[in-house]
């Protein structure tokens, strides 16, 4: 492996690669032990055993190209396409020799580079608009675009990260309980449900309920609840004067309805004694106590 590396790698580091830009020689490529290195090393300055890892570290052809360009301090906007293409091809060849799984994208890029190179050889127009049809334009755009996100990825990696740079502060809560929320109902849901069930019972006409009846029905429940104890309750106690005439009427209608349904008894010990009301205690076979709902409904 080191052999093949030695064979191929020097090309990657050939100073020839930057011959078109001799001024680059003034710039150090690297500082090693404080000494500026101004000549490209003759090899990849990576231990051969690390070579495979190194090559695999590229995130694709754009990444590799960018590396080749940046390594030589070249501007992405003005790539010496011939030199870069040659270096690129040498890496590709190296990868193939090392039997690295070479994604098709690398070969596609190789073809693209070759095409650009050939177009660069064609004579340019003289009208000053050559930058518009610079054959490198598309490649430059892609390289720049890729580099932006390569840098953005590094930025994201540097962001303050939970569980690495900072930790969520948390403590237990003594006597913690879980509160179970109850489902909510909107009024219209219930109304729609009612309408449906009544329609299904196909008894709309018969179930016709008037507004007043509802408060009577409510009051019927209230009265029954007041009688729940089983004892006698004074008739007058069931009325609340503060409700006014309407309230009294509603209560009275409720009492009549309860009486009719056989749910209460009204008793009087003797004439002119106060009336008392209690829950009905009927013979279980009382005929009028058939299912009221059905009677009303059908």
């Amino acid at each position: 492996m080191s052999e093949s590396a030695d064979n191929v790698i020097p090309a990657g580091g050939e100073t020839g690669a930057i011959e078109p830009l001799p001024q680059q020689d003034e710039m150090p490529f690297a500082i090693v032990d404080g000494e500026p290195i101004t000549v490209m090393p003759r090899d990849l300055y990576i231990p051969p055993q690390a070579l495979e890892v190194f090559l695999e570290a590229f995130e694709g052809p754009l990444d590799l190209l960018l590396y080749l360009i940046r390594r030589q301090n070249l501007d992405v906007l003005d790539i010496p396409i011939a030199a870069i293409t040659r270096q690129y091809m040498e890496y590709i060849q190296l990868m193939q020799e090392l039997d690295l799984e070479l994604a098709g994208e690398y070969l596609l890029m190789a073809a693209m580079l070759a095409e650009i190179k050939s177009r660069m050889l064609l004579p340019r127009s003289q009208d000053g608009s050559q930058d518009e049809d610079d054959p490198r334009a598309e490649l430059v755009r892609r390289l720049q675009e890729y580099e932006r996100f390569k840098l953005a990825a590094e930025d994201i990696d540097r962001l303050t990260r939970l569980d690495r740079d900072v930790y969520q502060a948390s403590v237990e809560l003594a006597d913690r309980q879980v509160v179970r929320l109850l489902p909510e109902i909107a009024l219209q849901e219930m109304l729609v449900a009612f309408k449906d069930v009544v329609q299904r019972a196909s008894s709309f006409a018969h179930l016709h309920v008037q507004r007043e009846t509802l408060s009577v029905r409510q009051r019927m429940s209230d009265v029954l609840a007041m009688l729940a104890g089983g004892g006698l309750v004074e008739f007058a106690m069931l009325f609340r004067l503060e409700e006014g005439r309407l309230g009294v009427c509603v209560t009275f209608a409720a009492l009549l309805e309860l009486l009719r349904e056989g749910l209460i008894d009204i008793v009087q010990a003797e004439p002119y004694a106060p009336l008392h009301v209690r829950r009905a205690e009927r013979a279980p076979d009382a005929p009028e106590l058939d299912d009221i709902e059905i009677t009303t409904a059908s």
Partner: protein
Amino acid sequence: MDRNDLGKLVEAALLAHGQPLNMEQLRGLFDEFERPDPDAVREALQALARDCAERPLELVEVASGWRLQVRGEYAARLSRLWQERPGRYSRALLETLALIAYRQPITRGEIENVRGVTVNPNIVRTLTERGWIRVVGHREVPGHPELLGTTREFLDYFGLRSLDELPSLAALKDMDDVGIQLEFAESVQAVAAGEPAANDAEAAG
């Protein structure tokens, strides 16, 4: 590392870990050459416990070490943070509730006659636990079936002052499309609603 710094590190460790830390773990935060002795750590823990007095926290020692916890007096209020998402009530429950509201007092048998299916006992239990219906009496027929009616909480929940504010069946019958129903229901709620409904929902929870 001075005492104050040690105290802060101990607090930081307990808060970051969120679980009890024992002496070994606390001392393990340090390399051997700088490791505080157990007494120094205990002192830092005591100082931290004192600091907690003016904060909603307390330092407790449990089987697996020391742990910072929010004091129990906050439990009731903070438990709201772990509320489970409410489910939805079934159609059968809505219909049952509606029939009880409109036709109270009513027995299960009567509800079944209208709905054409038996009433699941869970529905009646759920509605009772919710505080929306109650048994208001028994019909004096064989079996003495319970008569069900709605409660004041029911009215409060729906923002009604009385059952009168429910639309009559006739009005419901005329409401053919949902749009009208919504409009109507909203106006009923708008008129009737102070904001007791929200309170009740909370109280019920």
